[in-house]
């Protein structure tokens, strides 16, 4: 899980062009949206692309996004749960 979260963090930083924050400043539990990282709806769509590209998970309903993309940890949990299937 730790390894997955570390990889995921790196991938998120790359996918979303995050230059104004350092990866080490972002905790695995920290909310990705709202305050903090300042991500918006387009970033959420990019995360959906990331899930599909890197992990083969297709998220059909963007409304599920906020729950899954709450933090790096929730994303990693979702990936772990859905990759096995």
């Amino acid at each position, binding site marked *: 899980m730790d390894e997955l979260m570390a990889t995921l963090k790196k991938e998120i930083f790359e996918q*979303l*062009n*995050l*230059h*104004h*924050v350092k990866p080490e400043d972002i905790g695995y539990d920290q909310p990705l949206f709202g305050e903090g990282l*300042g991500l918006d709806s*387009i*970033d959420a*769509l*990019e995360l959906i*692309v990331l899930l*599909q*590209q890197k992990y083969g998970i297709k998220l059909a309903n963007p409304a599920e996004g906020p729950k899954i993309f709450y933090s790096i940890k929730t994303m990693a949990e979702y990936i772990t749960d859905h990759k096995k299937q």
Partner: protein
Amino acid sequence: MSFDKAISGYVLIKEGRVMYNDVVLFQLPDAAPAIFFNELYNALHINYPKFFKMDNLCKTVFLATEVLLKDRSLTGKYKAEETGIVFSNANSSIDADVRYYQSSMLAPSPALFVYTLPNVAIGELCIRHGIKGETACFVFDIFDSVFQAWYVDMLLDTIGTKACISGWADFCDEKFEAFFYLLEAETDNKLSIKHNSENIDKLYNHVWTS
């Protein structure tokens, strides 16, 4: 002192140099666009994380406008709907179009797709500076100062626009340039240039001396 309609400020970014109201503000000739943009961003002490997500055309117009408005705020002086933006360029959003097309081979990127329209660059400026009046982007082979002056004059003369960012900005094949000026219905600014195509051309065609 109060003047009639006049150009109250301008910015010229070309060949790796930035001029703001007759003064060279920043230069980094021969730098790749990405480096130039980041260094200029840093030099202007901006904190706007969205900048890093923008495409190259947006970065060009964003930085030009940051320089143009660095000593003033439009929102303090005018109602949002009294301010507008009109610029033209030669290559529309081709840089973003190509990048999006490349991404679409594997997985179409929503973040790239949103920049495949030239007027999204205007949208970014409107968001940043609270501009809600008329906006337009035109495509010409070369900068047409006669058209530009005619169109922007019309906005100030007919629909109640009081301040308009006007000019030219292009990004293609890793080359870029921007020339923006602020036209105000009334200004008591130190810099005050009569708005006509001759004066616009003179500012745009500036030749670096050193």
